[in-house]
C-alpha cells in the first residue's frame, strides 16, 4: 500500500516498505538527491531535513513514521532564489567538498527559526551533530551569525 508524503509542498505516493528510512525514499524514490547519505546511524547529520520545521536525521525516520510535512534543501531555496541562509553560505564561501553542507544548512536553518540571534555556544550546541571532514566549521559559524543579522534586518 502506498504511503502519502508531502515533500517541499508537493504530495507524493510512495510505494516502498514501511521501514525504508525517509533518506532513501527521498534519494532513490523521489529523486531529491540534495539530502545526503553519510553514515546511516545519525552520527554525521548529512541527511538532515525538516519535518514540520524540526531538524531530523532522515536516515533514522522510517517511511511509516514520518509525522508531518517534509522540507529538504531543495525546498528552502534554489540557485536562482536562495534562502538567506544559503546566500550567507555563498557569501562566506563555506563549502569545500560540499557533501555535508545540505545537512549543515538545514540544521542551521532550524536553529535560526528557533533562535534568531544564536550565540557561539548556541551554535556549538545546535551544530555539533553535523560532521564536516573538510573542517569548514569557522566559516559555517560566520555564515550563521551573518544570516542571523541579515534576517533581523529583513
Amino acid at each position, binding site marked *: 500500500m502506498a504511503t502519502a508524503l508531502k515533500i517541499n509542498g508537493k504530495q507524493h505516493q510512495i510505494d*516502498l*516498505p514501511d521501514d*525504508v*528510512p525517509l*533518506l*532513501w525514499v527521498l*534519494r*532513490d*524514490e523521489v*529523486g*531529491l*538527491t*540534495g539530502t*545526503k*547519505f*553519510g*553514515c*546511516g*546511524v545519525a*552520527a*554525521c547529520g*548529512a541527511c538532515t531535513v525538516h519535518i514540520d520545521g524540526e531538524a531530523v536525521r532522515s536516515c533514522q525516520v522510517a517511511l511509516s513514521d514520518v509525522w508531518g510535512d517534509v522540507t*529538504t*534543501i*531543495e525546498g528552502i531555496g*534554489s*540557485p536562482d532564489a*536562495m534562502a538567506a541562509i*544559503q*546566500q550567507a*553560505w*555563498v557569501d562566506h*564561501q*563555506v*563549502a*569545500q*567538498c*560540499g*557533501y*555535508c*553542507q545540505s545537512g549543515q*544548512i538545514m540544521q542551521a536553518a532550524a536553529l535560526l527559526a528557533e533562535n534568531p540571534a544564536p550565540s557561539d555556544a548556541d*551554535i*556549538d*550546541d545546535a*551544530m*555539533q*551533530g*553535523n*560532521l*564536516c*571532514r*573538510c*573542517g*569548514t*566549521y*569557522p*566559516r*559555517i*559559524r560566520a555564515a550563521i551569525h551573518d544570516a542571523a543579522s541579515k534576517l533581523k534586518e529583513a
Partner: protein
Amino acid sequence: MASVGKILRRTFLIGSAAIVGGVAFGAYYVSRPAANPLKPGDGQAALNPFVLIDQNGVTLFAPRAEMGQGVQTTWAALIAEELDVDLDQITVLHGPAAAAYYNSALIGEGLPNKGYDISDFQHNLGEALGVLGKTLSLQVTGGSTSMKDGFERMRQAGASARETLKQAAANRLGVDRSELKTASGHVIAPNGDQIPYTELATEVAKLEPIGAPLRDPSEWRYLGQTQPRLDMVEKATGTAEFGVDVRLPGMKFAAVRMNPKLGGAMSGYDDSAAKSMPGVEKVVDLGTGVAVIANNTWLANQAVEAIDVDWADAPYPPDTEGIFAKIAEAFDEAPNSTMRDDGDVSVTPDGATEITAEYQVPYLAHATMEPMNATALFTGDALEVWCGNQAPTLIKFRVANTANLDTEAVQIHTTYLGGGFGRRGELDFGEIATKVAMAMPGTPVQTTWSREEDMRHDYFRPGAIARMRGAVQDGKAVLIDGKVAAQSCTQQAVTRYTGMPGAGPDKVLVEGFFNQPYAVPNYRMSGHIAKLDVPVGFWRSVGNSHNGFFHETFMDEMAHAAGQDPLEFRLELMKAEHAPSAGCLEAVKEMSGWTGQAPDGVGRGVAFTYSFGTPVAQVIEVVDEDGTIRISKAWIACDMGLALDPENVKAQMFGGMMYGLSAACYGEITFAEGEVEQYNFPDYDALRMHTAPQVEVRVLETNRHMGGAGEPGTPPSMPALGNALFDLTGERARKLPLNQQFNLLI
C-alpha cells in the same frame, strides 16, 4: 605496454638512475604532442584540450577533480586571465579521461632533493621531467600539484585561444590582428564594434592555434585575487552532483560486502534469505565478496547484510599488536633509504647532551563524507562509469580490464567528489561497480558502500614507528639521527596499479623526515619498509602525516633538553637554511603573541613542516576547562610563493589542519581477528563545531617556487597539538591518538 609499469615504478620511487632514464624517455615522447581528446562538433572549436568555445559560451574542461580544494575556480581564473572572459561566463566541466590531461607536476615531485633548496637547474629538470606524466597518461589529482601543474599550461591555453580568436576576427574584418583588442568575451574592432567569441567559433575552428607570450603579473585581474568559487551556489542548494547523486533512466541500486579480512578470499555464501527480501532483484557473486541489486539502496543493503558469508583469513597478523611487532622488525633490516646523511652521527659530540625517544602513530582511514560509490552501465561491448575520482585514466584502464573491453569502449564521467583526501585515487570502487553492473547488462547500476564498508575497506594511512636520537649543546641541536618504519604505500600502490612489484628507495616514506630546513651539522634520516600486506594508500599529506609528528615532537623534546624556547630553538636552526620557512615561524610568533609563557590552565605548542613545496608553521592553544581539555585557538602561516587565490588557500590551510587534528585527537584504525575494529563515525570521530579551534591564517608569498595548498596544512597540526598538551600538562605525547592519554573534549 611493459615499459609503463617500469617507468611508473621509477617515477614513484625515484632514484638518480631513474632520472637519467626518465629524461631520455620523456624527451622522446614530448616531441609528439598528446592527441586532443575533445572532438568538437559542427560549429564548435576545441582550441586545445582545455577550452571549448561554441555558441553557448566558453567551457573549460578541468582536468583536475574538484574535491573541495577549489581547483576548478582557480583553473578557470588562469584561463580567463589570458582569454579576456569574465570568470562567471565560463562553464567548468571535468574533462574526459584523456592522455592530454597528464599531470606534469606530479612527476617532478619525485626528484630526490629536499625541495626547499631546489636550484633553478633542478627546477628546470623537474619541469622537463614533467613530460613523463604525459607518457604515462597520469591524469591524477594529488600531491598538492594542481596549481603548479596548471599555472603555465592553462594561461598558455587562454593566451593561444585569445590570439586565435583575434585572427578569426581579423580575417573577417580584413584588418591585421594587431589592430584588435579583446575584453569580456569579445573581440573589439578598431572602430569599437564588438564581436562575441561565440560568434567566431565556426571560423576559429578552421585556424591553426596561435601561440602568444604570457602577460606580466602586473597586468593580472584575477590571479592573486580571491574569486567566488564556481561550485558554491550548487553546493549551498543541494544541486551539485556527486557520484552518489547520479540518476539515470531505469537505474538500479546496489550494496556490497567485501571480505573484512582484507585481501582474504571468500570461501562460500548462503544467500537464500537475501534473495526473497523486498526490492531485491539479484545477488551478485564478486569472487571476493557479494553484492545485491535492488530498487533502493537501503533495501539492497538490508539484503546484502542478510547473506551468510564464509570469509577466509587475511594475509597479515590478525591483531594490532602483531602488526606493530612486524613494523618494529623492519628496524632490524638495512634501511630502504637514507636520503639525508650530513656530518657524522655515529658519535655524540663531546660535552653534548644526548636524548632519545620512540614514537608511534596508528593506521588511519580517509573517511570521506561521501562513502565510496560508482555507477556503471555495461552493454556487452561498451561501458560507462560515473564516479567522483582522482585518477580517471587509471580508473579507465582498470574497469576496461575488468569488463574485458578496449579502453576506447569505456567512458568515465567524473562528478564532484564528496571528499577525496587520497582515497578516490584508488580504483576499487570503480572496479566493484563495474562487476556489479556486468551482472545486469543494459541496466545502469549504482553501487554505494555503507559507511561501515567504507571505513573497514580503506587503503589506510600506514601505522608507523620512529626511533629518534639527538644531541644538544650550548642551547642548539648538534645531532639528529632518525629512523622511521612503516609499510610503503608507494610500493604497494605500484603493485596495485601495474601488477609489478614496486622497488627502490621510497621517498614518500621519508618525506617530512629527511627534508626539513634545519641546519643541524650531524643529521641522518633513514626509512625502513615494513613487510606487511595491510592495504595502505595515500592519505592527505602521505608520509608527512606521520613524519611531521615524529620530527616536530622530537624538535620540541630537544628544545626542552637544551633549555630553549621551542619556537626560538627552531628559528635559530632555520634562519640561515631557508628564509621563507623562518618567515612562517616568525609570522605565527607575531600572530599568536608567542612569549614562550602561557598562563595557568593554558598550553601552547608550535610545529613546522615543509611539504609539497610549502613551508607551514602552526601554533595551537589548548585550555583546561575543569579537567577537560579543549583546543581553543590555532594560528597558521604558510608560504607557497604565489598564492593564486588567497582565501581559497586559507580554506585549504585550516581544512588541512582540522583533518590532521581530527586524526591526532581521535583517529585510529585497529585490528582484531584480521578485521578492522572501527565501523562508523562513533568509532572514528573527527573535530566538530564545538571541538574545532578558532583559526587565523596568514599567507606569505616570498618562496621562489610555487608550492601546494591542499596537504601542507595537515602535518604540523598533530605535533603542534601534542606540544601544546605537553606545555599544559608536562606529559609528552609520544603516541597517537591523544584521547587515550589526555582528557580531551568530545
